[in-house]
């Protein structure tokens, strides 16, 4: 069993000085996820998906106007006051940093990070995507990570960020009125990832025919992409019947009659409740929080909880922290984001968004920007690489330089590592030639790097 202090690093964002005094760590973890809305992040300054998309529409209109030599309202706004994908992303990152620093343990935010990586959307895939990734996490992930998986799946699948990223917004039923009129057709990208990554997993036994059928079912699932005088606002999910492929479709042996959007909702119901989905999610969760090769008992328990509760993610999270296997005495390297968050919590520093971008990019795990729909690799071997470790040292030193000179490294190490702190480590910190060196080494200690 790992110590209480280690549990703060394994399940949370790492302790701030004073946080280790909570007493029973399991009770504190359970307490943090007791409120199903605990993961919500409502910051008045942040744009919702509709607002972010509208800002991108305005930019394109201004660019078109400028090309045509016409004036446009946006061009009269001072450049530094313009809303761009970059400013939206910057504000979203700033809100995450504030959230990280304010979290009590941070278990809910770790769950958010896990699910946001499960439903990965890539900021660098386009301007709209960059503007939407923060809203996606706040609107489609955070409200549901302690709710039902089916609701999470529905919200993520229908969000404009996902519909755009995986091209479903473009996919048109070849035999639908829109398809016949414009000679457009299917794009199976979203359907495939929905099966392979979001629900049952690649080994669930589906075929190309299942992927194609699901792609047909999802045709018409799109979002409002431009302003209109009537109808739902920009960014809203809509089912466009005109683009929907007519007919019965069969996915994984079950025939779905064509009742419009209900056809897809019925498939999502089926996939969310599929045993392969429970196993897929259970394995990923156990791997993320505990070990590359988690104990089969733990995976089974999480899968059974998932299945028995009808995909209640709060119940699954409770089952995780109630399992002795989850406290197994082995330590994997913190991925870069966890390293950064635990470091700024320990030191009490607030990096600027562009610094967060630079640090996490250099370490290989930029916020909101995974390399593919599969998300960041969750294998310990991925991060335990020589260059990555020396870059961590460079980052650690920069953070130590930014920390308050009033910090006392020895006391701080005890406050954030508790019983984990090795006597040899403490000796080394106290023997450092400067406080900056001591703080740098504190962040690089094996007991701080691993969890």
């Amino acid at each position, binding site marked *: 069993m790992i110590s209480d202090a280690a549990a703060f690093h394994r399940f949370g964002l790492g302790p701030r000085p004073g946080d280790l005094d909570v007493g029973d760590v399991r009770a504190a973890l359970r307490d943090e996820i007791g409120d199903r809305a605990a993961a919500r992040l409502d910051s008045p300054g942040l744009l919702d998906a509709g607002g972010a998309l509208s800002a991108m529409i305005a930019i394109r209109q201004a660019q078109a106007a400028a090309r045509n030599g016409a004036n446009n309202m946006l061009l009269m706004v001072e450049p530094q006051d313009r809303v761009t994908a970059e400013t939206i992303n910057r504000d979203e990152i700033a809100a995450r940093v504030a959230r990280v620093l304010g979290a009590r343990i941070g278990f809910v935010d770790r769950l958010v990070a896990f699910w946001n990586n499960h439903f990965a959307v890539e900021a660098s895939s386009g301007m709209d995507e960059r503007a939407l990734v923060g809203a996606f996490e706040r609107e489609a992930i955070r409200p549901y990570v302690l709710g039902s998986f089916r609701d999470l799946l529905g919200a993520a699948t229908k969000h404009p960020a996902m519909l755009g990223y995986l091209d479903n917004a473009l996919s048109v039923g070849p035999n639908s009125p829109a398809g016949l009129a414009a000679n457009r057709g299917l794009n199976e990208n979203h359907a495939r990832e929905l099966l392979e990554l979001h629900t049952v997993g690649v080994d669930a036994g589906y075929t190309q025919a299942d992927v194609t059928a699901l792609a047909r079912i999802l045709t018409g699932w799109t979002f409002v992409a431009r302003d209109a005088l009537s109808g739902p606002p920009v960014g809203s999910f809509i089912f466009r019947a005109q683009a929907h492929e007519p007919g019965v479709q069969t996915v994984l042996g079950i025939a779905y009659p064509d009742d419009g959007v209900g056809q897809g909702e019925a498939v999502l119901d089926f996939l969310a409740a599929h045993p392969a989905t429970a196993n897929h999610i259970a394995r990923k969760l156990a791997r993320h929080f505990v070990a590359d090769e988690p104990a089969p008992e733990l995976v089974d328990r999480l899968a059974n909880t998932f299945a028995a509760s009808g995909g209640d993610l709060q119940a699954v999270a409770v089952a995780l922290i109630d399992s002795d296997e989850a406290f197994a005495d082995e330590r994997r390297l913190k991925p870069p984001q966890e390293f950064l968050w635990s470091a700024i919590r320990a030191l009490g520093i607030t990096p600027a968004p562009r610094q967060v971008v630079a640090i996490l990019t250099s370490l290989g795990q930029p916020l909101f920007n995974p390399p593919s729909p599969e998300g960041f690799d969750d294998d310990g071997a991925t991060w335990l*690489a020589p260059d990555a470790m020396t870059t961590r040292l460079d980052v650690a030193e920069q953070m130590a330089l930014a920390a308050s000179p009033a910090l006392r490294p020895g006391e701080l190490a005890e406050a954030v590592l508790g019983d984990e702190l090795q006597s040899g480590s403490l000796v080394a910190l106290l023997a450092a030639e400067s406080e900056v060196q001591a703080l740098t080494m504190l962040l690089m200690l094996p007991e701080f790097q691993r969890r």
Partner: protein
Amino acid sequence: MTRATQSFPLSRRLFLGAAGSFVAWAQIPGIARATGHDPRFVVVILRGALDGLAAVPPIGDPAYAAIRGDMAVGAPGRERVLPLDGFFGLNDAMPELHRLYGEGDALIVHASATAYRERSHFDGQDVLENGAAGPQALRTGWLNRAVGALPSEGRIAPATGLAVSATVPLILRGAAPVVTWTPPNFRPAGADTVARLLDLYRHQDPELAAVFAAGVGLDALTAGEMAMGGGEVAGGIAGAFAEMAEGAARLIADPEGPRIAALSYNGWDTHANEGADTGRLADLLAALDGALGAIARTAAPVWDQTVVVVVTEFGRTVRGNGTDGTDHGTGTVAFVLGGAVAGGRVVADWPGLAEGQLLDARDLYPTTDLRAVLKGLLRDHLGLSETILTAQVFPDSIGVRPMDGLLG
């Protein structure tokens, strides 16, 4: 940060992260010194599945123009392609590759694929890198196993790996130690701090000690070599691709440098608005072309002893999809470059593009196993025996004969 106004330069690593990574094996085979043959081997992985029919269109196939429709690069009435052998053309975004082809230093393999027949990127890349017949079959990479099997006689340095990336890709994971490196953009921490940490790791965490020591050693080894002013990479994706390629080439060309490298470029998953004539894919091909040109130029002194192979996890559908793109397919192209390559030709057992000739009625039928190409190169260029290739490097490939005549 709040107290001090420390700022982290947003420099080349940002672009490297976006563009991919490269990994090299710091192996100095002893055979080299004894015989004067000192081979270099570079694997370039295109992640996301390259549309081989857009890169090397079979303009002589009578079914091609019709089945590709609006997306048929080089079809009559469209932008022209660079001539290869009359049957195949080369996308005109790739003049450097065309030049190398003309000089006999580039060979194109068409209608090839790995052993993987499903259509998941992630499993497809897994098979491309693990060298087995299926995904998740092995946790090590074929290039790592190939290096581990290199003739050891006269080896002057123990096998240690060099990976130029933030992380180690599967192709180079394995028993033989790998180290990683990217051009440093942070001010390196003081040597004293490094020494203290190494000492601490050695006492408390041997695994971390080994990894960290390797990283520190590489920063020292490459200091100055890549000092190119530290600014941002110019030229967006083309600049990022070229910088990575140039860095790899400089390292493998160095007499004391590594001999085996792997780098990867992302972004080839062109589901919508593929843009093979002008647009996204054309830009990517141009960036790749520039990178290949940069390797040939930078590694010119050792070009006769260098082989570069460019591979991707699978191809894309023969027909365009409904959104001016292509979905995941099977058969595609591979490129083999180098001074010793018997180039200037397209190697293909062409399956045809007519209805009935496609795989699953949608994909270019794969007629060449990519492992045959790789086995041929590893045998003839690195001197690995067929027994080792079949037993260790590409298990389950006993029926896949190494391709003959790739070099010469």
